[in-house]
């Protein structure tokens, strides 16, 4: 089998990105929405790693390191807000908290 080229990596990353985006837009459970956001970020990570592998040096990998850090913080913040919301309203489903139209 022919070794994978840059385009193979990008195809995977693009598909992953779209899956993540679909999850964010379509799912109603906010926990799953947060997971989908993680998938989107990871799609970008994959692209960065691929570019880094194909001739662009290590900078891309450093970038991925930062993205992982930020993503962790983002998840923590998101989950904290969800917990606070759950305490108040008893739900984490978008359709149940649609006082403001989402």
């Amino acid at each position, binding site marked *: 089998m022919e070794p994978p080229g840059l385009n193979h990596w990008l195809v995977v*990353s693009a598909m992953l*990105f779209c899956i*993540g*985006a679909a999850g*964010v837009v379509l799912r109603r459970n*906010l926990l799953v*929405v*947060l997971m989908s*956001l993680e998938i*989107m*970020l990871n*799609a*970008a990570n994959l*692209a*960065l790693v*691929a*570019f880094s592998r194909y*001739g*662009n*040096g290590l*900078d*891309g990998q*450093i*970038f991925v390191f*930062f*993205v992982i850090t*930020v993503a962790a*913080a*983002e998840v923590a*913040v*998101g989950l*904290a*807000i*969800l917990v*606070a*919301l759950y305490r*108040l*309203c008893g739900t984490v489903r978008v359709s149940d*908290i649609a*006082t*403001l*139209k*989402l």
Partner: protein
Amino acid sequence: MIHPSVLRLELAVVGLMLAVLLGDAFARKASRRYWGAAVAAALLALAGYAAAGAGILPNASARVFTAEGGFLVDAFALWVKVFALVATAVCVLLTSRTPGEDAPGFAEQVVLQLGVGLGMMVLGSARDLISFYVSLELMAIGLYLLVAWRKEDPLSLEAGVKYLVYGAMASAILLYGMALVYGAAGSLEFGIIRQAAATRSDSIVLLAGFALLLAGLGFKVSAVPFHWWTPDAYEGAPVPSMAALSLLSKPAGFIILARLLFDVFWPLHAMWQGPVAWAGAATLLWGGLGGLSQTNLKRLLAYSGISHSGFMLLALASPTRSGVAAMLYYLLAYLLSAGLVFTAMCGAAGPGARYDLRDLSGLGRKSPWLAGALLLGLFGLGGIPPLAGFFGKLLVIRCVVSESGWGFAAAAVGGAVGSLYYYLVVVKAALSPEENGAPPIAPVGRSLRALTAALAFGLLLVGAWPASVWGALRNAAEALCQ
């Protein structure tokens, strides 16, 4: 190598953050009454120091690099820092009024606001994609928390969730764009990306990355078609966080947009000019017309913010220095007028108020000065001379007429008239006789009074005598467009 002296402003803000945190842990409760004022005073002093050059820039056209070229201080970056410091000070002062200095969580709220301000300061100086991303995220994460801050109010939490989901999605899109740009240019550094944009403008990877970058930033500045989160986030957020959204987050979006358009992707300017202008016109009209049916002041201000974003996008769509200068002036005018409206809102009702328009009824009777501040702010937003908003609008329309053409000028007039109408609706509400159930006005402290006076003075000064800031703005614009 990092030269700490170049980073002295940022380090001072970090120091301030730590001081507030430590103070919260150790200081006695009685001593906390003046914290908000003290922090704001420190920030304003820093802003003054930065405006005077901060000892970093020898002259207006100098460029000082540090952190291996990842951090640049030029006149533009310095102006961004001044702006960020002043805007943060405004937010801190608003916070010190709602819910009050001795309330739990006050110190943490201030720390987060300082963090958001710091993010904007670093953003103005970022020279590579990593610094760009990290500082933008610093702002975003602080703001997610600040929007959701009133944890006893479901509306605030919902707004926080919503803002987080949409904001994080925008970040992801932005990040993907960055990845593609990195792949096409082979480097994270802005300088090398610019060269790549000049030599490889036919690369689809580069263009797709650029487009995704613009889309992601469109979210941050609430440009059509990425604007829908704005009214909900504004409505749910407490007033100081709303101020942080519109006085820090949106300006930061425009700052980095200007950096990308006029510096990094300048070689592609023939390509981005049209889309930016169209987005600007659409944003302007949407903001101007969408607000017409609103009955809640916060949502209305969100639409007003969208319409102002449209104006600034139109300014940026003119690929000239005067376009950048117009955008910078407009930002300043927006800071002063919107700040005035927010201070008036803080006084018009206590924390937790919904700010429906009829809650404002009778304000003119109950507190003529608050009503006056509100009116002044609204007229500033509406662009009535001699307030700063007018000159900003003039500069933008000047750019539009000379660069974008008549259709865009018509859109500008249409959007402006629409937003003028709903500002008058707010004025109407504030001047009408009191209805039953209007909340009592909140006691206005000395620091808030001082803030009101300072903003009003600034609004008049900058409007009646733009030469007072024009030199700095022109230098900033020239530094950006080298």
